[in-house]
């Protein structure tokens, strides 16, 4: 079996430098972790960190199993390696050191993806991508570009063409970047990433992210510096170029951001630095310091515009990994030919030829990494969705993918649940001796108070309801009493009046001669008693607030006609005439028919009582009020004896009559006008009087013009019925 490593022999110093560099590159994982975690929202921070750890594990596992072998084993026609699978760590120390160094490189390439797809990719799906990337995509391309790094192991086909990528702008960063691009195109942008609403998605801790960037910078010293695989005079040159490029990258990007936004945006500086570092990775061994500066500047600016382009085309990259690693990686690879010194890249190719080769390598990487990743992911996505559900995305991947949470998020979740359910009986968990615990404890105290207030409110409501029911019940009792009284009082009266008539009939039949006068007196007195009872009942009902009103259509001309017919006998008793005048625009009004009739009857019979040989007029008309409404007037005018001003003032009081002497000439109960005024007020109107002694009086009853037929008052039939 072929063992290429037989020719690999590094000095101890070199081995130590390679291993130290490997440690520095591993440190970059911390950098990536902090950077990505800081740039996402808190609810996804744990998910990002776990992705970083797990992709490092998976990529390392695959790399040892077969990745390293494919990449650096004896080349089969330049396409893949065929040895060094699962190498033994006790093997050739140089080989093993090289293996460790390459292992952490693989980890770097893989972890680039996690940032771009953050906040919406299923964890299991991410592990799958990590596996594909580190198991297939990275090692194969790595072989094509770097196969042959181990002496006498053949050469990858790109390497044999003269492709130069010193530490992996293409091999590591572009591969990672293009796979990331494929992934984010398949899973789509985050919810709200490109909405028109004010706030764009913001990272929760830019301090953390910035620290991450600087750590990356530190690690890059090993990333580029160690790629010589020896501690030789190239190393200072490479490290110096690396640092310079990073610095110029950050500066250029910052200034560009300032030009565009009038502000030095943090993300611009961060990604500018990274872009510069990525760009120089391919060519740090072939450029001068000024060359490095130019590479840095151009990479930084490219990164800036790359991010803007992504935004414009609505491709959501959570951390800007694609512009920084893919675009700048490709550019850095080209820079070998643009700014490098031909004798340093050592392929024997002229500048233009080298450029062609670089371009070829670049395009191959693009096609292979992006193409393969996109096809695979798109197909897998059909059977197993790579993206979390909308709900899970909103809740945050810390919770949905790992069941992990922070104290604060827990508290907020609990509070949110209570608010949604509208139930405040449970208390939130209080973790003692923590800041969040203090908030939780205070919240619980507030809840206690809230519950108290609710309880008081419930009690008050119940009391009010009880009182209401009792009030209505009491009213029912009163109504029943009044109704019964009405009936009870009329029965004996009916008997009295009826029997008088009977006696008269019997006497007539027996042929007895008698005069009707005495009997008529009894009947007359009984009827008067009846009127008094009616009046008293009405007044007591009114004062108890028990009068029922039912408002409905009333045909005014018809009403007046009926009235005329009823009052004619009474009017003619004193030899009076009756006239009814109705305005033309009056036909239907909405009011209580029976009450209105009772009022008008009262007014007209009063007029008839106090007038002899005169005229009684009922004039009905409409008039506009101050606020644009209309009132209906019923004016009863008589040419009778009239009243003094003193009497006018008292006329509407209950139990008051104009002439209250013993030898009263004009009979009455003294209640009629009081009841009429009360009814008028109940219907929303009033009664007024104008009078002159000897000339006559005009009683004016007016009601508001109601717009529709509805029952009013709390004690109407339907209202009372509904309350029981």
């Amino acid at each position: 079996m072929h063992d290429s490593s037989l020719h690999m022999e590094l000095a101890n110093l070199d081995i130590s430098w390679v291993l130290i560099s490997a440690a520095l590159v591993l440190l970059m994982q911390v950098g990536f972790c902090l950077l990505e975690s800081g740039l996402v929202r808190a609810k996804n921070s744990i998910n990002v960190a776990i992705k970083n750890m797990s992709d490092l594990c998976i990529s390392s596992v695959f790399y040892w199993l077969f990745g390293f072998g494919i990449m650096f084993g004896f080349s089969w026609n330049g396409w893949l390696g065929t040895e060094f699978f699962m190498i033994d760590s006790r093997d050739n120390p140089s080989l093993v050191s090289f293996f460790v160094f390459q292992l952490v490189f693989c980890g770097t390439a893989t972890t680039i993806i996690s940032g771009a797809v953050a906040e919406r990719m299923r964890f299991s799906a991410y592990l799958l991508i990590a596996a594909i990337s580190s198991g297939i995509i990275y090692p194969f391309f790595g072989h094509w570009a770097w196969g042959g790094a181990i002496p006498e192991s053949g050469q990858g086909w790109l390497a044999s063409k003269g492709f130069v990528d010193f530490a992996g702008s293409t091999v590591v960063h572009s591969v990672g970047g293009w796979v990331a691009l494929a992934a984010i195109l398949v899973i789509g942008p985050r919810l709200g990433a490109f909405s028109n609403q004010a706030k764009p998605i913001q990272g929760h801790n830019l301090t953390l992210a910035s620290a991450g960037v600087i750590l990356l910078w530190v690690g890059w010293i090993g990333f580029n510096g160690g790629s010589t695989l020896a501690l030789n005079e190239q190393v200072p040159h490479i490290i110096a170029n690396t640092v310079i490029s990073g610095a110029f990258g950050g500066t250029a990007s910052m200034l560009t951001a300032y030009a565009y936004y009038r502000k030095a945006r943090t993300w611009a500086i961060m990604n500018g630095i990274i872009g510069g570092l990525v760009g120089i990775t391919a060519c740090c061994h072939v450029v001068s310091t000024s060359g490095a500066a130019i590479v840095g500047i151009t990479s930084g600016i490219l990164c800036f515009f790359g991010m803007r382009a992504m935004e414009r085309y609505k491709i959501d990259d959570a951390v800007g990994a694609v512009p920084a690693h893919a675009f700048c990686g490709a550019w850095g690879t080209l820079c070998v030919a643009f700014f490098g010194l031909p004798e340093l890249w050592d392929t024997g190719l002229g500048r233009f030829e080298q450029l062609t080769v670089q371009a070829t390598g670049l395009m191959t990487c693009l096609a292979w990494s992006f193409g393969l990743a996109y096809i695979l992911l798109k197909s897998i996505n059909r059977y197993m969705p790579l993206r979390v559900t909308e709900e899970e995305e909103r809740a945050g991947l810390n919770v949905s993918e790992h069941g992990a949470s922070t104290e604060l998020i827990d508290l907020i979740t609990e509070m949110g649940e209570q608010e949604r359910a509208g139930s405040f009986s449970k208390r939130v968990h209080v973790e003692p001796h923590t800041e969040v615990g203090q908030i939780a404890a205070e919240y619980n105290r507030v809840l206690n108070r809230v519950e108290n207030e609710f309880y008081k409110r419930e009690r008050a409501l119940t009391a009010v309801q009880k009182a209401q029911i009792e009030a209505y019940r009491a009213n029912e009792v009163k109504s029943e009493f009044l109704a019964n009284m009405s009936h009870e009082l009329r029965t004996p009266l009916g008997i009295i009046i009826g029997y008088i008539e009977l006696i008269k009939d019997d006497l007539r039949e027996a042929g007895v001669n008698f005069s009707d006068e005495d009997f008529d007196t009894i009947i007359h007195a009984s009827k008067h008693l009846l009127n008094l009872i009616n009046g008293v009942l009405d007044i007591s009902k009114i004062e108890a607030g028990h009068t029922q009103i039912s408002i409905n259509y009333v045909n005014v001309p018809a009403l007046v006609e009926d009235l005329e017919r009823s009052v004619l006998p009474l009017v003619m008793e004193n030899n009076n005439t009756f006239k009814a005048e109705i305005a033309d625009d009056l036909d239907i009004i909405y009011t209580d028919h029976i009450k209105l009739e009772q009022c008008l009857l009262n007014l007209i019979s009063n007029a008839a009582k106090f007038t002899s040989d005169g005229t009684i007029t009922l004039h009905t008309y409409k008039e506009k009020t101050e606020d644009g409404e209309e009132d209906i007037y019923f004016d009863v005018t008589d040419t009778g004896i009239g009243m003094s001003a003193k009497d006018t003032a008292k006329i509407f009081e209950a139990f008051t009559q104009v002439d209250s002497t013993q030898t009263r000439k004009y009979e009455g109960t003294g209640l009629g006008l009081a009841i009429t005024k009360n009814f008028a007020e109940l219907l929303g109107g009033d009664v007024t009087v104008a009078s002159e002694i000897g000339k006559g009086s005009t009683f004016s009853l007016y009601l508001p013009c109601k717009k529709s037929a509805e029952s009013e008052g709390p004690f109407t039939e339907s209202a009372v019925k509904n309350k029981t």
Partner: protein
Amino acid sequence: MSQLSIVVIEDNAALSQMIKRRLEHLNYAVHLADSGETGKDTCRKIKPDIILLDIHLPGKDGWTIATELKSDPATKSTPIIAVTAHAMAGDREKAIRSGCDDYVTKPIDFPTLNEKIQYLVD
């Protein structure tokens, strides 16, 4: 013209006697009943031309009796005149709703009652 028969459902004895005598003076054949249930039985047996029903009966009130009379096939075609205590808006509506054909108020004015009866049996 044959005599018209009338069943008077009224619980007060003195009042119903008075009504009976006055109606007989007006040439009606009068049958008395002192409660709603007795009244229904009497109506079913006698099948009068008209029923005079006091609304304010003890026990089952007059409205219910009126409704029951109107649902009983034996009595449903007989006109009912209700006797109410006061011409309140509620009473009038109730009378019509429970199936009464007309109503008079207490104390009864017999000429008016006579007119209403004559109107209903024609």
